[in-house]
């Protein structure tokens, strides 16, 4: 395994308009590492994850993916390899099945339809959703069901890097722990979890970084 970190933030500052929300933040996450980012709301933790995927402009500093600065090309590669689930992740209109089919239709996924479909079924099962959730309208799903569907889909594409933003906020304690055990427990996965609550998993080894403690 190479020593280049998978994802590294160098002196990253984030600004919303005039307001600086993060100043010279540094973090290195190597392959297989699990990292929990803790911080109050408005501490910039969600924006950090989005910035790693090129979705948010950083005010200064640099973000490297596999040692390369995140130019548009590198960001595109990062998106291909990184699974991301946002806070209260919306799933579009129609039934869950429609969203799945749309995802399977992307050129990037077309060749792996069966594989993704199968794994998606397994993940739904793992997250304790009934098989007929596929026929449910996304608009009727509760916040927790939406989060679990989004997690199932993100974890069905064969990716090994996960950026998860408050994905357990609508889950009860048992499901929350089960979810975090999965993403923080798999040795080959690299996971960054953003949360504002403390979590003490049984089996996982992970590091915690606290933001906005100034």
């Amino acid at each position: 395994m190479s020593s280049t970190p998978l994802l590294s933030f160098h002196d990253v500052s984030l600004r919303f308009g005039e307001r600086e929300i993060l100043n010279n933040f540094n973090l290195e996450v190597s392959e297989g590492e699990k990292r929990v980012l803790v911080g109050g709301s408005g501490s910039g933790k969600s924006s950090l994850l989005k910035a790693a995927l090129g979705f948010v402009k950083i005010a200064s500093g640099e973000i490297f993916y596999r040692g390369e600065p995140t130019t548009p090309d590198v960001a595109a590669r990062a998106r291909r390899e990184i699974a991301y689930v946002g806070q209260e992740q919306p799933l579009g209109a129609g039934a869950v099945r429609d969203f799945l089919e749309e995802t399977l239709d992307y050129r990037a996924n077309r060749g792996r339809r069966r594989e993704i479909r199968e794994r998606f079924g397994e993940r739904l099962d793992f997250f304790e959703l009934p098989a007929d959730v596929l026929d449910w309208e996304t608009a009727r799903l509760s916040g927790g069901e939406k989060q679990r569907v989004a997690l199932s889909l993100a974890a069905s594409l064969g990716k090994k890097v996960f950026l998860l933003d408050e994905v357990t906020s609508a889950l009860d304690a048992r499901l929350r722990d089960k979810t975090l055990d999965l993403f923080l427990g798999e040795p080959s996965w690299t996971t960054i979890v953003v949360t504002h609550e403390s979590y003490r998993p049984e089996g996982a080894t992970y590091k915690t970084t606290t933001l906005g403690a100034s």
Partner: protein
Amino acid sequence: MNGAIDISYWALALSAAFALAPIVLSAAFRLRLVKDVVVSSLRMSAQLALVGFFLEYLFAWNNAWLNVAWFATMVVFASFAAVGRSSLNWRRFFFPMFAAFLIAGGSTTLLLNLFVVDLENPFSARYVIAVGGMLLSNSMRGTIVGVGDFYHDLRRDEGLYLFRLTLGATFFEAAAPYFRRSVRAALKPTIAAMATMGVVSLPGMMTGQLLGGSSPAVAVKYQIAIVFAILGATTLTVALGIGLTYRFAIDAYGRLKEEWLGD
């Protein structure tokens, strides 16, 4: 062509009495519409008087270049209106929108004049200006709805758009659901109007032709052809309008350029 009976200026002024209805109602029920009615009435009369003045000359000269220039001017106004009403930054979006209207409106007008009406000179004033104007104004209505909806939804659902990008979608695949939805919204009124045409309403163009002395059979044939052309022109304009502006609305990372989208 034996035209409609002319209206005297005195009689025309009398028609403005119809505008008293909203003014009286507004006074009685404090609708606060008086100013709007008066301003709009004056604008409508002045604009049309000016256009009538120009058209008299344009029709008399019937110069292909002038006709095309007039058409291009209409395209400029349509593009401004479409960009402004979709609350986009006109500096950035004017040219792609102009291109969309010019390509879609121009090609349908030309095709209609050449192959359906079978004109020897497809740039004759009557047809380029009258038919082209109808196609432009109708596709403008759809385009304001379609392009406006597209960017409105894209910004409102940005979280979903970004999620799609991480699920493997290309920029175009991630925007496709919004494209689908907004083109559908843009075409719905036209399709619905087609379904009731003749039953609920006699379209303006047909009324005009009937008053102008055309036989109902001719007026109906023109109406059918023009409605098909409107449907095609609207579809093309919306699709091109979104397709051409979208490239300017996102940066190399696929982020929406908020500062260009206005509010």
